[in-house]
C-alpha cells in the first residue's frame, strides 16, 4: 500500500517537475510546481515526517508559490518561445551545475547509509523543535540572520524610490 502510494507520488512529482521547467505558459509552470511540492509532501508523510509534509504545503505550495503566481499574473508574462537566445557560456555553466548536482545525488543514493538523522522519530513538532534549538541552534540562528538580511534588503530597495 505504502509503496504504491510512493511510486505514484514519485512518478507524478517527476512528470510535473518536467512540465514545470518545459511548458511555455508561465502559469502552468507555477501550477505544476505546486503539484510537485504536493507529491514531495506525500512522500515526507510516508516517511513519518508529518510535520515536514504540512510545513512543505503550508509554506511552499500555500505561500511562496501563491506569490510566484501573483507576480506572473501581475506582469502578465507572455508565453515563452523556444529558448534559442541563450549564450554559449550560459549553457556551459548550466550543464556544469546540473552535472555536479546529479553526481551529488547519485553519490547520496549509492551511499550505504542514507544520511537522514532522526527520520521516524521526527514526525512530531516537539522532536523537530528540540533538534532546532538544541544541536542545530547555530545553523538555525544563521538562517534567521539570512532571512533578516533579505527583509532589510527588500525594504531598502522599496524605500529608495520614494
Amino acid at each position, binding site marked *: 500500500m505504502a509503496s504504491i502510494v510512493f511510486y505514484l507520488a514519485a512518478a507524478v512529482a517527476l512528470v510535473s517537475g518536467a512540465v514545470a521547467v518545459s511548458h511555455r505558459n508561465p502559469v502552468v509552470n507555477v501550477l505544476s510546481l505546486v503539484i510537485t511540492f504536493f507529491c514531495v509532501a506525500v512522500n515526507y508523510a510516508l516517511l513519518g515526517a508529518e510535520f515536514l509534509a504540512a510545513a512543505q504545503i503550508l509554506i511552499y505550495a500555500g505561500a511562496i508559490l501563491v506569490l510566484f503566481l501573483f507576480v506572473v*499574473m501581475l506582469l502578465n508574462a507572455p508565453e515563452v518561445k523556444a529558448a534559442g537566445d541563450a549564450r554559449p557560456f550560459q549553457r556551459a555553466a548550466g550543464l556544469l551545475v546540473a552535472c555536479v548536482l546529479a553526481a551529488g545525488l547519485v553519490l547520496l543514493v549509492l551511499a550505504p547509509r542514507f544520511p537522514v538523522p532522526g527520520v521516524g522519530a521526527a514526525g512530531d513538532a516537539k522532536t523537530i523543535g528540540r533538534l532546532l534549538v538544541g544541536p542545530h541552534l547555530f545553523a538555525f540562528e544563521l538562517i534567521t540572520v539570512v532571512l533578516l538580511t533579505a527583509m532589510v534588503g527588500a525594504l531598502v530597495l522599496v524605500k529608495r524610490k520614494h
Partner: protein
Amino acid sequence: MWAELAVTAGKLVAIAATILTSVAVMEWVERRGAAFIQDRLGPNRVGPLGLFQPIVDAVKLLFKEDVTPEAANKWLYYLAPMISVFVALVTFIVIPFGAGDDVTVLGVPLRGLVVAPDLNVGVLYLLALSSLGVFGIVLGGWSSNNKYSLLGGLRSSAQLISYELSMTLAVLGVLMATGSLRLTDVVAYQGAHLWNFMPQAIGCLVFVTAAFAETNRLPFDLPEAENELVAGYHVEYSSMKFAAFLMSEYMNMVTASALIVTLFFGGWTFPGMGAFTGWPLFLLSLASFAVKIAFFLWLFVWVRWSLPRFRYDQLMRLGWKGLLPLAVLNLVWVSVAMVMKWI
C-alpha cells in the same frame, strides 16, 4: 479492518452531508437575515418560511446555460471551481465534532467523529490545506481572461497571504498553551481549563478578524467588490461552476466557524458535562458544538449586513500594522503567563 473502514466511510458521508446541508440552510439564513436587518421580508414564498428557496435556487443554477468565454484558458477555467470545493471539503477531517471515546459503533470507537484522529499535526494540516484554497480563486480570476476577474484574483492572493500570517500567529498562542498540535488535545485542554477566549482575548479577536478576511466576507470582500469589480474573480462563471464558488465560500464559513469554536470557545465541551457519559454525552456534545457553530455563522451574516467594506489600503494597513503586532503581543502574553503559571 472492514468495520473500521465502514465506520470511517460512514463518518465521511455523515460529515459531508451535514456540511452540504448547512450550506443550503446558510443561503436561506443569509437572505432572510439580510432582509431582517434591512427591515424587509426576504424570500418567503417557497415552502414554510421560504425554507425550500435554496432547493429552487440550486435547480435554477443547474439548468442555466453554462457559458465558457472564448478566450479563456479552458483547463484552468474548469479546474478553478473544483480546487475551491475540494479544499473546502477536505479540511473537515481533523475537526473533533464531539466527545466519544467510550462510544462505539460496530466495535470501533467513534473518537469524536474525527476522520483522521491519529494525524499528529492536525492544526497544521488545516492551515496548509486552507492556504491552498487561494489557488481556486486566483486561477478562476486569471483563466477567465477578464480584467475585472484578474483584479479580483490578484487582490485575493495579496489579502490571503497577509491575513494568513496573523491567523497562524494567533493559533500559535493556543498551541503553546495546549502543548499539542492535535485539535482533540486543544479541546480536552479547554475542558479542563478556561476556554481559550478568556485568557487569550487578543488572540481570539485577531483570529476571528483574520477568519473574516480568509473567507472573503464583508467587510473584507475586496476580491468580489461589486461596485469596483462587477463580481470579482467569478465574473465570467455561470451555472454550476458559479454555484461551486458560492458553495465553497459557505463551506469555508462553516470551517472557519468550526475552527473558531474549537480553538477558542471550548470545542464541543459545555458546562456541567461531567454528569454525562457514553451516548448521552456524545449527543449533547454534538449539539453543543452545533449551537456554537450556528452562533458564529450568524455572526458572519450579521457582520456582513452591518459593516461597510474596507478600502484596499485600509485592509492592508489593518492586516500588517494592526493585526500582526496584536498577534505577536498575544504570543508574548501567553509566554509570560505560562512561565508565571497564570494559565
